[in-house]
């Protein structure tokens, strides 16, 4: 999927003049953030709102002289917390990620491939449903390219704990589903 397939307006006006770094960061991280939030269980619209709010918070953070270490982890942490707050406020079950009712229709796939793909994702979805929340979140952040240290910053875990959690989650998926 190309980047253009994810419609998301860039809040240029909210960024201060000369903040080209933030704009570049937005272009780089908007899709990973959006994907992470959608996989956590937010709708597409909610995820886009959270992404925009996260970058506005980043702008305020930088304008206030906040630390610029691990900006990517900072953004994921803010987005993760906002997603938790939204799901709590709407009394939703946070452990309902990777939407079970979603139909996966691969564009341009032949009917046979579409059926095989759907079956593969069905097994994978069932296996993911058996993971603990922390395992699922660690895998999602790992899939977005975050280092173990950054994952620990987002979820408030030690790096060694993240390593153990990721290893355990991968092993579970490998055992539970034959993909």
């Amino acid at each position: 999927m190309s980047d253009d397939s994810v419609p998301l307006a860039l809040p240029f006006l909210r960024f201060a003049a000369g903040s080209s770094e933030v704009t570049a960061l937005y272009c780089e991280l908007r899709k990973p953030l959006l994907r992470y939030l959608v996989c956590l269980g937010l709708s597409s619209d909610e995820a886009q709102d959270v992404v925009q709010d996260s970058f506005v918070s980043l702008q305020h953070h930088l304008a206030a002289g906040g630390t610029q270490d691990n900006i990517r982890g900072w953004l994921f942490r803010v987005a993760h917390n906002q997603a938790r707050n939204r799901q709590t406020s709407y009394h939703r079950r946070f452990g309902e990620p990777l939407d079970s009712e979603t139909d996966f229709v691969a564009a341009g796939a032949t009917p046979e491939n579409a059926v095989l793909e759907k079956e593969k994702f069905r097994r994978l979805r069932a296996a993911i449903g058996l993971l603990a929340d922390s395992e699922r979140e660690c895998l999602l952040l790992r899939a977005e390219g975050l280092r173990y240290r950054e994952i620990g910053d987002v979820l408030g875990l030690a790096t060694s704990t993240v390593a153990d959690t990721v290893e355990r989650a991968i092993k579970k998926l490998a055992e539970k589903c034959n993909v």
Partner: protein
Amino acid sequence: MCELQPKLVAWLDHELPPDQAAEVENHLQACKECRALRDRYQQVSTSFEAYRDALLTAKTCRSVPRWVPALSGALLAITATVLLVAFHRSRIEPPRPVVTPTATRATAAPVKALASESVLPKAIHRRRALPPLPVPATKWQPAETAIQITIPAETMFAPGAIPEGMNFIAELSIGPDGSVERLRLRP
């Protein structure tokens, strides 16, 4: 089970220190079981990432909830039904009185003619109001005497006061309200 198996995932993620990574790489060259496990972990990771992409695509493309088309269709059907009923009712009107030109001319009743004209739709919309018609200052006068009454003179005067056999004609002018406005006697 090899003791290095728990480090395979961290090695795949490039999270191991250089010395431990080198140790795992050396072990992989010699251990077939760990190589198979490494391939398996890689396959699971790839499938998981593809699953995320598919989920994002599915959710982004289906931004409109499924109930929206159904609700829109129902609202459209209700609107069409209401419009149809309203249109049908507007077509059922009481029969308009048929006023033929001859009948209008025969009755010559200006009030009825105005009433029948008011029912007809106005075809011409005047953009400016006409000035009011001037009201005549003089009071209404009848063009001719409405009633003439012949009265014998004996009934009005004493006997011998006037010549015998003389009659008077009373001319009465009737006002708009039916009252007598003027009375004139002439022989």
